[in-house]
């Protein structure tokens, strides 16, 4: 057993997600990501089951582990009670712990997710806080979304929201004491540590790629990782 597998098996996701794979391929048959990407959850499961550190390291540095959509359809279908989607969660966690995620195009995207979703969680108390997130970055949202963005607070109030208000309700201002509790939980449980690692390894990679990276999302590196697609992900 190699060191990487030793780390992986400490993760409850791997303990729960990998019993004994019989390589039947049922997970691959049901997997939406396998249909779209060069992705095969059966293969991932087999590699981890082999406990071959060299192959696991390749996985952790690859685009492959970032293709899964975590829909968990595989959990329903596996005849042996495995969940490749859970194995993926363990692999992604270790890839970020080791800093390997910056070695792949899809892995590098973690910084964008950390700065948007992670920022909203810590600063607003919500996973999403979409006032100002317009159709420039999300053209699929369409003209009704443009109208909503132009009238965000008005439409919210029309539909019963307590937008940025005190007390209960839709998109209320979460009390400062509650936000402080969330931040303390992140500090005590390793949430901040993971955020710091994503930032540190991304800064190193941006330097290596000679790209500008400062705070926020309006900089060269973030724009690059948000939009670049080498089109080698789905040759089928």
């Amino acid at each position, binding site marked *: 057993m190699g060191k990487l597998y030793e780390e992986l098996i400490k993760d409850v996701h791997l303990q729960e997600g990998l019993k004994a794979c019989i390589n039947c391929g049922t997970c691959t048959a049901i997997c939406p990501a396998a249909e779209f990407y060069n992705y095969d959850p059966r293969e991932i499961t087999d590699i981890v089951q082999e406990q071959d550190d060299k192959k696991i390291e390749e996985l952790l540095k690859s685009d492959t582990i970032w293709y899964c959509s975590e829909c968990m359809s595989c959990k329903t279908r596996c005849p042996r009670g495995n969940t490749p989607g859970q194995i993926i969660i363990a692999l992604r*966690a270790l890839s970020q712990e080791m800093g390997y995620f910056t070695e792949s195009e899809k892995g590098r995207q973690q910084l964008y997710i950390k700065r948007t979703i992670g920022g909203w969680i810590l600063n607003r108390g919500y996973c999403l*806080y979409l006032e100002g997130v317009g159709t420039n970055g999300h053209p699929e949202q369409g*003209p009704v979304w443009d109208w909503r963005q132009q009238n965000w607070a008005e439409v919210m109030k029309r539909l019963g929201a307590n937008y940025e208000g005190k*007390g209960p309700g839709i998109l209320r201002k979460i009390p400062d004491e*509650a936000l402080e509790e969330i931040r303390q939980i992140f500090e005590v449980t390793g949430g901040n540590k993971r955020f710091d690692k994503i930032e540190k390894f991304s800064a190193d990679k941006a330097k290596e790629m000679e790209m500008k990276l400062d705070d926020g999302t309006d900089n060269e590196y973030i724009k690059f*990782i948000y939009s*670049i697609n080498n089109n080698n992900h789905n040759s089928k």
Partner: protein
Amino acid sequence: MNLDAKKDIWGNYQKEIANDHYFYLRSCVRQNFFPGAETTFLRIIKDELKKDIFEDPAHTTCTGIGYHGDIVPFETTMTIVARQFSLMTENGYENLVPSCITSFGLYSEVIETWDHYPQLLEKTRQNLKKATGREFVLPANLAHASDIIYKFRDEISAKAKYKLINAETGQPLRIVEHIGCHYSKMFPHKSIGGAEYPYVLIGMIESWGGEVVDYPERRHCCGFGFRQYLVKANRGFTFACTKKKFDSMEPYKPDMIITNCPGCPMFLDKGQFAISQLEGKSYGENGMGIPVFTFEEVAGLVLGYDPWDIGLQVHQIAVEPLLNKMGVKYDPEKKYLGLNDKYLGIPQMEKELNTCC
């Protein structure tokens, strides 16, 4: 045939749902995209069903999108979930009702994990105590908001002003139901009907007069995929999934789609817009889209609520074809008005945008 054994088998697909006194947790996705749906849910629970439902302003995200976007470690997520339970306990409630399917799946996952690994429950208690000084009790009952509407579907039907019936022909409307993946695919025993026969939306449709449409890709994911949608470079995955579903359901000519997840209706709604822009293709009648609804919105329509109070104006795909079929009375002039009929302008639709009205 051994009928007792048959009863036992079907027992596995049943779910106990609390009758009253709910602790409500909002959905980050639903609040942003379908605020009127949550307003409608609370209106139905309080005003129509006369139930007690409570919301603590200090509750927060469960971190679900961050957890499944793999930026938030499980230990952090478990402790945030424990904090939500602590608020429930502190307010004297024991029946947890999340609005979000990702949250529902996550609460189910955390509870199941603690069941398998009691040491992680103990560690979470220590973490929460250290970070916040809080303690908590696990919920006695965990039900998604759609489970609650399912439980009282016949009471809603008894008060119905409109049915899911074509008012002109008297025929049932043909309805596609879409269940969020994390409702039943991960922990089938925590849902109504399990992963094979998820009955939560079918029950509503049947009770309210509609006809359920089966089609090959009925259980395929809507395409959200967390990081697959959040990052622009990956978004082709999302709309490839959406297109797969619509191509599959198109021959069955559904009148409408009903969903129980907050994200799925957004992807099925905006996805039709995206496909119309990319490929000039629309899936509904007369070059229009297929209207997509949340279960709360449909319950509100059945009860005769004004479509613009429910929030149907924020949908990209026009809902009017469905309203007209049901015979719902509405004022088209009021669709895009704000509070106190304040004029807010109207969305700037392109002429060729045939998925809109």
